[in-house]
Protein backbone atom coordinates (compact mmCIF):
# COMPACT_ATOMS: atom_id res chain seq x y z
CA UNK A 1 0.00 0.00 0.00
CA UNK A 2 1.53 3.30 -1.10
CA UNK A 3 0.86 6.66 0.51
CA UNK A 4 1.21 10.06 -1.13
CA UNK A 5 0.87 13.61 0.07
CA UNK A 6 -1.67 15.83 -1.69
CA UNK A 7 -2.32 19.53 -1.09
CA UNK A 8 -5.93 20.52 -0.41
CA UNK A 9 -5.68 23.04 -3.23
CA UNK A 10 -4.82 20.20 -5.66
CA UNK A 11 -7.88 18.08 -4.85
CA UNK A 12 -10.01 19.65 -7.66
CA UNK A 13 -7.25 18.68 -10.09
CA UNK A 14 -7.44 15.09 -8.82
CA UNK A 15 -11.22 15.07 -9.26
CA UNK A 16 -10.80 16.31 -12.83
CA UNK A 17 -8.19 13.60 -13.42
CA UNK A 18 -10.52 10.90 -12.14
CA UNK A 19 -13.05 12.06 -14.76
CA UNK A 20 -11.08 10.03 -17.32
CA UNK A 21 -12.14 6.84 -15.55
CA UNK A 22 -15.85 7.52 -15.41
CA UNK A 23 -18.53 9.87 -14.27
CA UNK A 24 -17.41 11.35 -10.94
CA UNK A 25 -20.06 11.56 -8.22
CA UNK A 26 -19.23 13.50 -5.05
CA UNK A 27 -20.79 15.38 -2.13
CA UNK A 28 -22.18 18.83 -2.91
CA UNK A 29 -23.78 21.42 -0.66
CA UNK A 30 -27.56 21.66 -0.98
CA UNK A 31 -29.26 24.67 0.58
CA UNK A 32 -27.61 25.97 3.74
CA UNK A 33 -27.30 22.84 5.85
CA UNK A 34 -27.71 19.80 3.61
CA UNK A 35 -25.43 17.72 1.42
CA UNK A 36 -26.06 15.43 -1.51
CA UNK A 37 -24.08 13.03 -3.72
CA UNK A 38 -24.28 14.55 -7.21
CA UNK A 39 -22.51 14.20 -10.55
CA UNK A 40 -19.55 16.58 -10.61
CA UNK A 41 -19.88 19.40 -13.18
CA UNK A 42 -17.23 21.68 -11.68
CA UNK A 43 -14.65 20.05 -9.41
CA UNK A 44 -14.39 23.20 -7.27
CA UNK A 45 -18.04 22.68 -6.20
CA UNK A 46 -17.20 19.43 -4.44
CA UNK A 47 -17.40 19.69 -0.64
CA UNK A 48 -14.55 17.97 1.21
CA UNK A 49 -15.68 18.74 4.77
CA UNK A 50 -19.25 17.56 5.19
CA UNK A 51 -21.11 15.81 7.96
CA UNK A 52 -23.36 13.46 6.02
CA UNK A 53 -25.54 13.61 2.92
CA UNK A 54 -29.31 13.50 3.48
CA UNK A 55 -29.79 10.47 1.22
CA UNK A 56 -27.18 7.73 1.50
CA UNK A 57 -25.07 6.51 -1.41
CA UNK A 58 -27.44 3.55 -1.82
CA UNK A 59 -29.52 5.86 -4.05
CA UNK A 60 -26.92 5.25 -6.78
CA UNK A 61 -27.25 1.44 -6.51
CA UNK A 62 -30.89 1.03 -5.56
CA UNK A 63 -32.52 4.12 -7.05
CA UNK A 64 -35.38 5.61 -4.97
CA UNK A 65 -37.64 4.91 -7.97
CA UNK A 66 -36.54 2.47 -10.66
CA UNK A 67 -38.40 1.43 -13.80
CA UNK A 68 -38.41 -2.36 -14.09
CA UNK A 69 -40.42 -2.70 -17.28
CA UNK A 70 -42.73 -0.93 -19.68
CA UNK A 71 -45.96 -2.71 -20.60
CA UNK A 72 -48.77 -2.45 -23.10
CA UNK A 73 -52.23 -3.00 -21.71
CA UNK A 74 -53.57 -3.39 -25.24
CA UNK A 75 -51.25 -6.27 -26.14
CA UNK A 76 -50.77 -7.66 -22.64
CA UNK A 77 -47.03 -7.66 -23.23
CA UNK A 78 -44.01 -6.07 -21.60
CA UNK A 79 -40.48 -4.99 -22.38
CA UNK A 80 -37.59 -5.39 -19.97
CA UNK A 81 -35.86 -2.21 -18.89
CA UNK A 82 -32.16 -2.81 -19.43
CA UNK A 83 -29.81 -1.32 -16.89
CA UNK A 84 -26.79 0.13 -18.64
CA UNK A 85 -24.31 1.80 -16.33
CA UNK A 86 -21.25 3.66 -17.54
CA UNK A 87 -18.18 3.51 -15.26
CA UNK A 88 -18.58 5.67 -12.17
CA UNK A 89 -16.10 7.01 -9.63
CA UNK A 90 -17.56 7.91 -6.24
CA UNK A 91 -15.37 10.57 -4.67
CA UNK A 92 -15.35 11.82 -1.07
CA UNK A 93 -17.10 8.84 0.50
CA UNK A 94 -16.95 8.35 4.28
CA UNK A 95 -15.92 4.99 5.72
CA UNK A 96 -19.37 4.18 7.19
CA UNK A 97 -20.93 4.85 3.78
CA UNK A 98 -18.53 2.40 2.12
CA UNK A 99 -19.33 -0.18 4.79
CA UNK A 100 -23.03 0.28 4.02
CA UNK A 101 -22.40 -0.55 0.36
CA UNK A 102 -20.54 -3.74 1.39
CA UNK A 103 -23.59 -4.69 3.48
CA UNK A 104 -25.94 -3.91 0.59
CA UNK A 105 -23.77 -6.23 -1.54
CA UNK A 106 -24.67 -9.05 0.81
CA UNK A 107 -28.35 -8.13 0.95
CA UNK A 108 -28.80 -7.87 -2.82
CA UNK A 109 -26.37 -10.56 -4.02
CA UNK A 110 -26.82 -13.42 -1.56
CA UNK A 111 -29.55 -15.94 -2.31
CA UNK A 112 -30.90 -14.74 -5.66
CA UNK A 113 -28.31 -12.28 -6.97
CA UNK A 114 -30.08 -9.29 -8.47
CA UNK A 115 -28.71 -8.29 -11.88
CA UNK A 116 -29.77 -4.61 -11.70
CA UNK A 117 -27.84 -4.07 -8.48
CA UNK A 118 -24.87 -6.06 -9.73
CA UNK A 119 -24.52 -3.98 -12.90
CA UNK A 120 -24.59 -0.70 -10.97
CA UNK A 121 -22.16 -2.01 -8.40
CA UNK A 122 -19.66 -3.59 -10.76
CA UNK A 123 -19.11 -0.42 -12.74
CA UNK A 124 -18.23 1.63 -9.63
CA UNK A 125 -14.95 2.75 -8.04
CA UNK A 126 -14.62 4.47 -4.67
CA UNK A 127 -12.40 7.22 -3.33
CA UNK A 128 -12.82 7.65 0.42
CA UNK A 129 -12.22 10.65 2.64
CA UNK A 130 -11.81 11.06 6.40
CA UNK A 131 -14.37 13.05 8.39
CA UNK A 132 -14.72 14.94 11.65
CA UNK A 133 -17.43 13.22 13.73
CA UNK A 134 -20.32 15.47 14.76
CA UNK A 135 -22.85 14.90 17.57
CA UNK A 136 -24.65 12.17 15.56
CA UNK A 137 -21.87 9.98 14.16
CA UNK A 138 -21.23 6.83 16.20
CA UNK A 139 -19.70 4.53 13.59
CA UNK A 140 -16.75 3.63 15.84
CA UNK A 141 -19.23 1.96 18.22
CA UNK A 142 -20.35 -0.37 15.42
CA UNK A 143 -16.81 -1.20 14.36
CA UNK A 144 -16.22 1.42 11.65
CA UNK A 145 -13.37 3.81 12.39
CA UNK A 146 -12.83 7.03 10.43
CA UNK A 147 -9.85 5.55 8.57
CA UNK A 148 -11.48 2.19 7.72
CA UNK A 149 -10.38 1.69 4.11
CA UNK A 150 -12.07 -1.60 3.19
CA UNK A 151 -13.89 -1.30 -0.12
CA UNK A 152 -12.07 1.82 -1.31
CA UNK A 153 -9.69 2.05 -4.24
CA UNK A 154 -8.18 5.29 -2.93
CA UNK A 155 -8.52 7.03 0.43
CA UNK A 156 -7.83 10.62 1.43
CA UNK A 157 -6.89 11.07 5.07
CA UNK A 158 -6.84 14.70 6.20
CA UNK A 159 -3.59 15.67 7.96
CA UNK A 160 -3.16 19.25 9.14
CA UNK A 161 -5.52 20.62 6.49
CA UNK A 162 -3.94 18.76 3.57
CA UNK A 163 -4.26 15.10 2.66
CA UNK A 164 -2.48 11.77 2.63
CA UNK A 165 -3.64 9.71 -0.32
CA UNK A 166 -3.62 5.92 0.17
CA UNK A 167 -3.57 3.63 -2.86
CA UNK A 168 -5.49 0.49 -1.97
CA UNK A 169 -6.16 -1.45 -5.17
CA UNK A 170 -4.73 -1.95 -8.66
CA UNK A 171 -7.67 -0.02 -9.94
CA UNK A 172 -6.79 2.84 -7.59
CA UNK A 173 -3.21 2.67 -8.82
CA UNK A 174 -4.45 2.82 -12.40
CA UNK A 175 -6.53 5.92 -11.72
CA UNK A 176 -3.49 7.78 -10.40
CA UNK A 177 -1.16 6.83 -13.26
CA UNK A 178 0.36 10.01 -14.63
CA UNK A 179 -1.15 12.30 -11.98
CA UNK A 180 1.83 14.43 -11.00
CA UNK A 181 0.56 16.49 -8.06
CA UNK A 182 1.29 13.80 -5.47
CA UNK A 183 4.50 12.86 -3.66
CA UNK A 184 5.39 9.61 -1.97
CA UNK A 185 5.30 9.98 1.81
CA UNK A 186 5.19 8.07 5.10
CA UNK A 187 1.69 7.37 6.45
CA UNK A 188 0.89 9.32 9.61
CA UNK A 189 -1.51 8.45 12.38
CA UNK A 190 -3.97 11.28 12.93
CA UNK A 191 -4.77 12.01 16.58
CA UNK A 192 -7.58 14.04 18.04
CA UNK A 193 -10.61 12.96 16.00
CA UNK A 194 -13.09 11.70 18.60
CA UNK A 195 -16.62 10.39 18.44
CA UNK A 196 -18.97 12.32 20.71
CA UNK A 197 -21.78 9.77 20.41
CA UNK A 198 -21.15 6.23 21.59
CA UNK A 199 -22.90 2.95 22.24
CA UNK A 200 -21.65 1.81 25.64
CA UNK A 201 -21.00 -1.85 24.72
CA UNK A 202 -18.74 -3.30 22.09
CA UNK A 203 -20.94 -4.17 19.12
CA UNK A 204 -20.30 -7.88 19.45
CA UNK A 205 -22.18 -7.83 22.78
CA UNK A 206 -25.28 -6.27 21.26
CA UNK A 207 -26.92 -9.43 19.83
CA UNK A 208 -26.95 -10.81 23.38
CA UNK A 209 -28.55 -7.62 24.70
CA UNK A 210 -31.17 -7.84 21.97
CA UNK A 211 -31.78 -11.50 22.71
CA UNK A 212 -33.36 -10.48 26.01
CA UNK A 213 -34.77 -7.09 24.97
CA UNK A 214 -37.80 -8.22 22.93
CA UNK A 215 -40.32 -7.46 25.66
CA UNK A 216 -38.50 -4.44 27.09
CA UNK A 217 -40.50 -1.37 28.16
CA UNK A 218 -38.12 0.71 26.06
CA UNK A 219 -40.10 -0.18 22.90
CA UNK A 220 -43.34 1.29 24.22
CA UNK A 221 -41.51 4.51 25.07
CA UNK A 222 -39.99 4.71 21.58
CA UNK A 223 -43.35 3.92 19.98
CA UNK A 224 -45.08 6.66 21.97
CA UNK A 225 -42.74 9.23 20.44
CA UNK A 226 -42.50 7.79 16.89
CA UNK A 227 -44.69 9.51 14.27
CA UNK A 228 -44.32 6.63 11.78
CA UNK A 229 -42.99 8.77 8.93
CA UNK A 230 -40.31 6.31 7.78
CA UNK A 231 -37.53 8.95 7.55
CA UNK A 232 -35.19 6.71 9.56
CA UNK A 233 -35.38 3.85 7.07
CA UNK A 234 -35.38 6.02 3.94
CA UNK A 235 -32.17 7.74 5.07
CA UNK A 236 -30.64 4.49 6.36
CA UNK A 237 -27.75 3.41 4.12
CA UNK A 238 -28.29 -0.32 4.79
CA UNK A 239 -32.10 -0.45 4.53
CA UNK A 240 -33.10 -2.02 1.22
CA UNK A 241 -36.80 -2.90 1.45
CA UNK A 242 -38.85 -1.90 -1.56
CA UNK A 243 -42.33 -1.83 -3.02
CA UNK A 244 -43.30 -2.53 -6.63
CA UNK A 245 -46.10 -0.57 -8.26
CA UNK A 246 -47.66 -0.26 -11.70
CA UNK A 247 -48.26 3.18 -13.20
CA UNK A 248 -50.64 3.54 -16.13
CA UNK A 249 -50.46 6.46 -18.54
CA UNK A 250 -53.56 8.63 -19.07
CA UNK A 251 -54.12 7.00 -22.45
CA UNK A 252 -54.74 3.76 -20.50
CA UNK A 253 -52.80 1.91 -23.22
CA UNK A 254 -49.28 1.78 -21.81
CA UNK A 255 -47.64 1.94 -18.45
CA UNK A 256 -44.66 0.90 -16.44
CA UNK A 257 -43.85 -1.26 -13.47
CA UNK A 258 -41.47 0.43 -11.07
CA UNK A 259 -40.02 -0.25 -7.72
CA UNK A 260 -39.49 2.33 -5.03
CA UNK A 261 -38.00 2.44 -1.55
CA UNK A 262 -40.42 1.25 1.09
CA UNK A 263 -40.24 1.31 4.87
CA UNK A 264 -41.06 -1.27 7.53
CA UNK A 265 -41.93 1.75 9.71
CA UNK A 266 -44.99 2.54 7.61
CA UNK A 267 -48.21 1.13 9.06
CA UNK A 268 -49.31 -0.86 5.98
CA UNK A 269 -45.94 -2.47 5.28
CA UNK A 270 -46.89 -5.96 6.55
CA UNK A 271 -50.59 -5.78 5.66
CA UNK A 272 -52.10 -8.36 3.31
CA UNK A 273 -55.26 -8.31 1.18
CA UNK A 274 -58.24 -8.86 3.43
CA UNK A 275 -56.88 -6.48 6.07
CA UNK A 276 -54.71 -8.73 8.26
CA UNK A 277 -51.70 -6.69 9.41
CA UNK A 278 -48.80 -8.71 10.78
CA UNK A 279 -47.06 -5.69 12.35
CA UNK A 280 -50.04 -3.62 13.26
CA UNK A 281 -48.79 -1.50 16.14
CA UNK A 282 -46.04 1.12 16.14
CA UNK A 283 -44.24 -0.81 18.86
CA UNK A 284 -43.99 -3.85 16.55
CA UNK A 285 -42.44 -1.70 13.87
CA UNK A 286 -39.95 0.34 15.94
CA UNK A 287 -38.71 -2.88 17.46
CA UNK A 288 -38.46 -4.62 14.08
CA UNK A 289 -36.27 -1.83 12.69
CA UNK A 290 -33.69 -2.15 15.48
CA UNK A 291 -33.72 -5.94 15.40
CA UNK A 292 -32.96 -5.71 11.69
CA UNK A 293 -29.93 -3.58 12.54
CA UNK A 294 -28.54 -5.48 15.54
CA UNK A 295 -29.92 -9.01 15.71
CA UNK A 296 -31.45 -10.80 12.72
CA UNK A 297 -28.77 -10.37 10.04
CA UNK A 298 -26.07 -9.89 12.70
CA UNK A 299 -26.69 -13.38 14.09
CA UNK A 300 -25.92 -14.82 10.66
CA UNK A 301 -23.18 -12.52 9.42
CA UNK A 302 -21.47 -11.43 12.64
CA UNK A 303 -21.68 -7.72 11.86
CA UNK A 304 -24.16 -5.06 12.95
CA UNK A 305 -26.33 -3.95 10.01
CA UNK A 306 -25.97 -0.38 11.30
CA UNK A 307 -22.88 1.58 10.24
CA UNK A 308 -23.24 4.49 12.68
CA UNK A 309 -23.81 7.30 10.17
CA UNK A 310 -26.31 8.94 12.52
CA UNK A 311 -28.83 9.76 9.78
CA UNK A 312 -31.84 8.08 11.39
CA UNK A 313 -31.24 10.20 14.49
CA UNK A 314 -30.22 13.44 12.78
CA UNK A 315 -33.27 13.40 10.48
CA UNK A 316 -35.91 12.03 12.87
CA UNK A 317 -38.64 14.69 13.27
CA UNK A 318 -39.42 13.29 16.73
CA UNK A 319 -35.82 13.40 17.92
CA UNK A 320 -35.59 9.65 18.48
CA UNK A 321 -31.96 8.57 18.82
CA UNK A 322 -30.92 5.06 17.78
CA UNK A 323 -27.76 4.95 19.94
CA UNK A 324 -29.80 6.23 22.89
CA UNK A 325 -32.32 3.38 22.45
CA UNK A 326 -29.49 0.86 22.37
CA UNK A 327 -27.90 2.42 25.47
CA UNK A 328 -31.24 2.24 27.29
CA UNK A 329 -31.52 -1.46 26.39
CA UNK A 330 -27.97 -1.98 27.69
CA UNK A 331 -28.87 -0.21 30.94
CA UNK A 332 -31.96 -2.41 31.36
CA UNK A 333 -29.89 -5.49 30.65
CA UNK A 334 -27.38 -4.48 33.32
CA UNK A 335 -30.19 -3.95 35.84
CA UNK A 336 -31.64 -7.35 35.03
CA UNK A 337 -28.22 -8.97 35.46
CA UNK A 338 -27.76 -7.16 38.80
CA UNK A 339 -31.10 -8.43 40.07
CA UNK A 340 -30.33 -11.96 38.93
CA UNK A 341 -27.03 -11.81 40.81
CA UNK A 342 -28.60 -10.39 43.97
CA UNK A 343 -31.21 -13.15 44.01
CA UNK A 344 -28.48 -15.78 43.99
Amino acid at each position, binding site marked *: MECFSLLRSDVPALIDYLGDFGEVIAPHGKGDVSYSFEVVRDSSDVVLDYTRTLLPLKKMFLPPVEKLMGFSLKNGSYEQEDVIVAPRVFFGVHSYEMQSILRLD*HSMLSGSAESNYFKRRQSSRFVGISFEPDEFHFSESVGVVIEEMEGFDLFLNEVDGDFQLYVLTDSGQGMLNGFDKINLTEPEVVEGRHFKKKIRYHYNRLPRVFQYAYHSDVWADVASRCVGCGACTLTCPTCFCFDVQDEVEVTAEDGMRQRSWDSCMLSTFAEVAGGENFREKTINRTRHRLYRKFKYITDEEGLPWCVGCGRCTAFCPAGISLPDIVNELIQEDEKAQYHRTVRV
Partner: protein
Amino acid sequence: MKRLQDVEHHETEDLYYPTMCKVTGAKQITEMEKWYELEMPDGQSLGHSPGQFVEVSAFGIGEAPISISSSPSKNGKFELCIRQVGTLTNVLKNYETGDMMGIRGPFGKGFPMEKLFGKDILVVAGGIGLVPLRSLINYVLDNRKDFGRLIILYGAKTPSELLFTDELETWKDRDDVELHVTVDQPDETWEGNTGVITTLIPSLDLKLNTTIAAITGPPVMYKFVVMSLKSKQLPDDQIYLSLERRMKCGVGKCGHCQINGVYCCQDGPVFNYVDLKPLEEAL
Protein backbone atom coordinates in the same frame (compact mmCIF):
# COMPACT_ATOMS: atom_id res chain seq x y z
CA MET B 1 -20.92 -12.37 4.06
CA LYS B 2 -21.49 -12.35 0.32
CA ARG B 3 -19.08 -10.05 -1.47
CA LEU B 4 -19.21 -8.49 -4.91
CA GLN B 5 -16.08 -10.37 -5.96
CA ASP B 6 -17.79 -13.67 -5.07
CA VAL B 7 -20.42 -13.12 -7.78
CA GLU B 8 -19.98 -13.69 -11.50
CA HIS B 9 -22.17 -11.83 -13.97
CA HIS B 10 -23.76 -15.06 -15.24
CA GLU B 11 -24.85 -15.92 -11.69
CA THR B 12 -27.04 -12.83 -11.46
CA GLU B 13 -30.71 -12.94 -12.40
CA ASP B 14 -33.41 -10.69 -13.79
CA LEU B 15 -35.68 -11.41 -10.87
CA TYR B 16 -38.80 -9.41 -11.57
CA TYR B 17 -39.99 -10.42 -15.05
CA PRO B 18 -43.07 -12.63 -15.33
CA THR B 19 -43.58 -15.47 -17.80
CA MET B 20 -46.81 -15.04 -19.73
CA CYS B 21 -49.00 -18.12 -19.22
CA LYS B 22 -52.18 -18.96 -21.07
CA VAL B 23 -55.37 -19.51 -19.10
CA THR B 24 -56.73 -22.84 -20.37
CA GLY B 25 -59.62 -23.10 -17.94
CA ALA B 26 -61.48 -20.75 -15.60
CA LYS B 27 -64.48 -21.21 -13.36
CA GLN B 28 -66.02 -19.20 -10.54
CA ILE B 29 -66.46 -21.97 -7.96
CA THR B 30 -67.94 -19.97 -5.06
CA GLU B 31 -69.14 -16.43 -4.63
CA MET B 32 -65.61 -15.30 -3.75
CA GLU B 33 -63.26 -17.81 -5.37
CA LYS B 34 -62.32 -18.52 -8.94
CA TRP B 35 -60.36 -21.51 -10.22
CA TYR B 36 -57.89 -21.25 -13.10
CA GLU B 37 -55.91 -23.75 -15.12
CA LEU B 38 -52.77 -22.35 -16.76
CA GLU B 39 -50.22 -23.47 -19.31
CA MET B 40 -46.59 -22.40 -19.48
CA PRO B 41 -45.25 -21.36 -22.92
CA ASP B 42 -43.56 -23.98 -25.15
CA GLY B 43 -44.72 -26.92 -23.07
CA GLN B 44 -42.48 -25.98 -20.14
CA SER B 45 -43.33 -27.37 -16.72
CA LEU B 46 -43.77 -25.10 -13.70
CA GLY B 47 -41.71 -27.58 -11.67
CA HIS B 48 -43.20 -26.84 -8.28
CA SER B 49 -43.59 -28.88 -5.13
CA PRO B 50 -46.78 -28.96 -3.00
CA GLY B 51 -46.99 -25.86 -0.80
CA GLN B 52 -45.07 -23.49 -3.08
CA PHE B 53 -46.52 -20.28 -4.51
CA VAL B 54 -46.24 -18.05 -7.58
CA GLU B 55 -46.46 -14.29 -8.05
CA VAL B 56 -49.42 -13.55 -10.30
CA SER B 57 -49.18 -10.39 -12.36
CA ALA B 58 -51.72 -8.19 -14.13
CA PHE B 59 -50.21 -5.19 -15.93
CA GLY B 60 -51.46 -1.88 -14.62
CA ILE B 61 -52.45 -3.41 -11.28
CA GLY B 62 -49.45 -5.30 -9.91
CA GLU B 63 -48.55 -8.63 -8.40
CA ALA B 64 -49.71 -10.85 -5.55
CA PRO B 65 -48.51 -14.16 -4.11
CA ILE B 66 -50.90 -17.02 -4.90
CA SER B 67 -50.68 -20.66 -3.78
CA ILE B 68 -50.39 -23.36 -6.41
CA SER B 69 -53.38 -25.64 -6.06
CA SER B 70 -52.55 -28.51 -8.39
CA SER B 71 -50.27 -31.45 -7.73
CA PRO B 72 -46.86 -31.54 -9.46
CA SER B 73 -47.99 -34.96 -10.68
CA LYS B 74 -50.49 -33.23 -12.97
CA ASN B 75 -48.50 -32.95 -16.19
CA GLY B 76 -48.12 -29.86 -18.33
CA LYS B 77 -50.56 -27.54 -16.65
CA PHE B 78 -51.00 -26.03 -13.21
CA GLU B 79 -53.95 -24.65 -11.27
CA LEU B 80 -54.61 -21.66 -9.06
CA CYS B 81 -57.65 -20.80 -6.99
CA ILE B 82 -57.94 -17.13 -6.12
CA ARG B 83 -60.18 -15.41 -3.58
CA GLN B 84 -61.36 -11.98 -4.73
CA VAL B 85 -60.23 -9.96 -1.77
CA GLY B 86 -57.91 -7.22 -3.02
CA THR B 87 -57.24 -4.89 -5.95
CA LEU B 88 -55.38 -7.42 -8.08
CA THR B 89 -57.58 -10.42 -7.35
CA ASN B 90 -60.70 -8.42 -8.22
CA VAL B 91 -59.21 -7.77 -11.66
CA LEU B 92 -58.17 -11.42 -12.08
CA LYS B 93 -61.86 -12.26 -11.58
CA ASN B 94 -62.40 -11.15 -15.17
CA TYR B 95 -59.75 -13.47 -16.63
CA GLU B 96 -61.20 -16.23 -18.78
CA THR B 97 -59.92 -19.07 -20.96
CA GLY B 98 -57.54 -17.73 -23.60
CA ASP B 99 -56.36 -14.75 -21.54
CA MET B 100 -52.68 -14.42 -20.62
CA MET B 101 -51.61 -14.20 -16.99
CA GLY B 102 -48.13 -13.12 -15.83
CA ILE B 103 -46.47 -15.69 -13.56
CA ARG B 104 -43.20 -15.61 -11.61
CA GLY B 105 -42.02 -18.57 -9.61
CA PRO B 106 -42.54 -21.11 -8.16
CA PHE B 107 -41.12 -19.64 -4.95
CA GLY B 108 -40.41 -20.71 -1.38
CA LYS B 109 -40.22 -24.01 0.41
CA GLY B 110 -43.15 -26.37 0.08
CA PHE B 111 -43.83 -29.49 2.13
CA PRO B 112 -40.68 -31.62 2.52
CA MET B 113 -42.05 -34.59 0.57
CA GLU B 114 -38.99 -36.75 1.31
CA LYS B 115 -39.94 -36.61 4.99
CA LEU B 116 -43.59 -37.35 4.26
CA PHE B 117 -43.07 -40.59 2.31
CA GLY B 118 -44.40 -43.62 4.16
CA LYS B 119 -46.14 -41.50 6.78
CA ASP B 120 -49.77 -40.97 7.71
CA ILE B 121 -50.71 -37.52 6.41
CA LEU B 122 -53.11 -35.41 8.46
CA VAL B 123 -54.29 -32.42 6.43
CA VAL B 124 -55.90 -29.57 8.39
CA ALA B 125 -57.40 -26.95 6.05
CA GLY B 126 -59.32 -23.87 7.15
CA GLY B 127 -61.17 -21.87 4.45
CA ILE B 128 -58.96 -21.16 1.43
CA GLY B 129 -56.21 -23.03 3.25
CA LEU B 130 -57.50 -25.96 1.21
CA VAL B 131 -56.06 -24.35 -1.94
CA PRO B 132 -52.36 -25.11 -1.28
CA LEU B 133 -53.20 -28.30 0.62
CA ARG B 134 -55.11 -29.62 -2.39
CA SER B 135 -51.74 -29.77 -4.13
CA LEU B 136 -50.45 -32.02 -1.34
CA ILE B 137 -53.65 -34.12 -1.19
CA ASN B 138 -53.65 -34.82 -4.93
CA TYR B 139 -49.94 -35.58 -4.85
CA VAL B 140 -50.58 -38.19 -2.14
CA LEU B 141 -53.52 -39.61 -4.09
CA ASP B 142 -51.48 -39.81 -7.30
CA ASN B 143 -48.76 -41.69 -5.39
CA ARG B 144 -51.11 -43.43 -3.00
CA LYS B 145 -48.94 -46.47 -2.19
CA ASP B 146 -46.06 -44.24 -1.05
CA PHE B 147 -48.04 -42.93 1.91
CA GLY B 148 -49.94 -44.29 4.90
CA ARG B 149 -53.32 -42.96 5.91
CA LEU B 150 -54.64 -39.73 4.40
CA ILE B 151 -56.81 -37.88 6.88
CA ILE B 152 -58.35 -34.60 5.71
CA LEU B 153 -59.94 -32.12 8.11
CA TYR B 154 -61.60 -29.25 6.29
CA GLY B 155 -63.51 -26.37 7.85
CA ALA B 156 -65.39 -23.52 6.18
CA LYS B 157 -67.60 -20.75 7.49
CA THR B 158 -70.72 -21.85 5.60
CA PRO B 159 -71.62 -24.76 3.28
CA SER B 160 -71.68 -22.36 0.31
CA GLU B 161 -68.03 -21.45 0.93
CA LEU B 162 -66.80 -25.05 0.57
CA LEU B 163 -64.26 -25.28 -2.24
CA PHE B 164 -63.74 -28.08 -4.75
CA THR B 165 -67.02 -29.78 -3.81
CA ASP B 166 -66.74 -32.32 -6.66
CA GLU B 167 -63.39 -33.45 -5.35
CA LEU B 168 -64.69 -33.51 -1.78
CA GLU B 169 -67.32 -36.01 -2.99
CA THR B 170 -64.65 -38.16 -4.65
CA TRP B 171 -62.46 -38.10 -1.55
CA LYS B 172 -65.45 -38.96 0.62
CA ASP B 173 -66.22 -42.03 -1.52
CA ARG B 174 -62.68 -43.39 -1.45
CA ASP B 175 -61.85 -46.06 1.12
CA ASP B 176 -58.27 -44.81 1.42
CA VAL B 177 -59.21 -41.24 2.39
CA GLU B 178 -60.64 -40.22 5.76
CA LEU B 179 -62.44 -36.95 5.12
CA HIS B 180 -64.04 -34.87 7.86
CA VAL B 181 -65.74 -31.61 6.90
CA THR B 182 -67.23 -29.06 9.27
CA VAL B 183 -68.86 -25.63 8.91
CA ASP B 184 -69.17 -22.85 11.49
CA GLN B 185 -72.57 -21.67 10.34
CA PRO B 186 -74.73 -24.47 8.90
CA ASP B 187 -77.74 -23.81 6.69
CA GLU B 188 -80.98 -25.84 6.65
CA THR B 189 -79.59 -28.37 4.13
CA TRP B 190 -76.36 -29.09 6.04
CA GLU B 191 -76.19 -32.59 7.54
CA GLY B 192 -72.50 -32.75 8.42
CA ASN B 193 -70.37 -31.57 11.35
CA THR B 194 -70.88 -28.15 12.83
CA GLY B 195 -68.28 -26.08 14.67
CA VAL B 196 -64.75 -24.79 14.22
CA ILE B 197 -62.12 -27.09 12.76
CA THR B 198 -60.52 -27.94 16.10
CA THR B 199 -63.71 -29.80 17.12
CA LEU B 200 -62.71 -32.52 14.62
CA ILE B 201 -59.40 -33.24 16.31
CA PRO B 202 -60.17 -34.82 19.76
CA SER B 203 -61.94 -37.90 18.32
CA LEU B 204 -59.14 -38.67 15.81
CA ASP B 205 -57.30 -41.93 16.34
CA LEU B 206 -53.72 -41.02 15.33
CA LYS B 207 -50.63 -43.18 15.24
CA LEU B 208 -48.36 -40.66 16.93
CA ASN B 209 -45.03 -41.96 15.67
CA THR B 210 -46.00 -41.97 11.99
CA THR B 211 -48.36 -39.01 11.59
CA ILE B 212 -47.34 -35.77 9.90
CA ALA B 213 -49.76 -32.83 10.16
CA ALA B 214 -49.99 -30.20 7.40
CA ILE B 215 -51.92 -27.09 8.41
CA THR B 216 -53.09 -24.10 6.39
CA GLY B 217 -55.82 -21.63 7.23
CA PRO B 218 -56.56 -18.10 8.40
CA PRO B 219 -53.97 -16.61 10.82
CA VAL B 220 -56.27 -16.99 13.83
CA MET B 221 -56.56 -20.76 13.30
CA TYR B 222 -52.98 -21.93 13.74
CA LYS B 223 -52.57 -21.53 17.50
CA PHE B 224 -55.73 -23.46 18.24
CA VAL B 225 -55.00 -26.30 15.83
CA VAL B 226 -51.46 -26.66 17.19
CA MET B 227 -52.80 -26.67 20.75
CA SER B 228 -55.31 -29.41 19.87
CA LEU B 229 -52.64 -31.53 18.16
CA LYS B 230 -50.27 -31.07 21.10
CA SER B 231 -52.98 -32.21 23.50
CA LYS B 232 -53.13 -35.39 21.35
CA GLN B 233 -49.37 -35.70 22.07
CA LEU B 234 -48.35 -35.24 18.43
CA PRO B 235 -44.61 -34.31 18.52
CA ASP B 236 -43.82 -30.70 17.49
CA ASP B 237 -41.48 -31.71 14.69
CA GLN B 238 -44.27 -33.64 12.97
CA ILE B 239 -46.32 -30.47 12.50
CA TYR B 240 -45.96 -28.34 9.35
CA LEU B 241 -47.71 -25.01 8.84
CA SER B 242 -48.01 -22.87 5.74
CA LEU B 243 -48.16 -19.16 6.64
CA GLU B 244 -49.56 -16.18 4.82
CA ARG B 245 -47.53 -12.97 4.61
CA ARG B 246 -47.16 -10.12 2.13
CA MET B 247 -44.69 -11.91 -0.13
CA LYS B 248 -44.22 -9.13 -2.60
CA CYS B 249 -41.01 -10.02 -4.45
CA GLY B 250 -40.78 -13.75 -3.73
CA VAL B 251 -36.98 -13.72 -3.78
CA GLY B 252 -36.05 -12.59 -0.26
CA LYS B 253 -35.33 -8.96 -1.03
CA CYS B 254 -38.28 -6.60 -0.55
CA GLY B 255 -38.74 -7.25 3.18
CA HIS B 256 -42.54 -7.29 3.38
CA CYS B 257 -42.94 -10.95 4.34
CA GLN B 258 -40.46 -11.03 7.23
CA ILE B 259 -41.39 -12.95 10.36
CA ASN B 260 -38.81 -11.63 12.80
CA GLY B 261 -35.56 -12.42 10.97
CA VAL B 262 -37.02 -15.02 8.60
CA TYR B 263 -38.21 -14.36 5.05
CA CYS B 264 -41.51 -16.20 4.65
CA CYS B 265 -41.02 -16.30 0.86
CA GLN B 266 -37.65 -18.08 1.18
CA ASP B 267 -37.70 -20.12 4.39
CA GLY B 268 -41.45 -20.68 4.08
CA PRO B 269 -44.30 -20.43 3.40
CA VAL B 270 -44.25 -24.01 4.76
CA PHE B 271 -42.46 -24.22 8.12
CA ASN B 272 -41.85 -26.96 10.61
CA TYR B 273 -43.46 -25.97 13.92
CA VAL B 274 -40.12 -26.39 15.72
CA ASP B 275 -38.63 -23.64 13.55
CA LEU B 276 -41.58 -21.31 14.18
CA LYS B 277 -41.65 -21.66 17.96
CA PRO B 278 -38.78 -19.18 18.61
CA LEU B 279 -40.33 -16.60 16.24
CA GLU B 280 -42.53 -14.26 18.28
CA GLU B 281 -44.23 -12.83 15.18
CA ALA B 282 -45.12 -16.19 13.66
CA LEU B 283 -48.40 -17.44 15.13
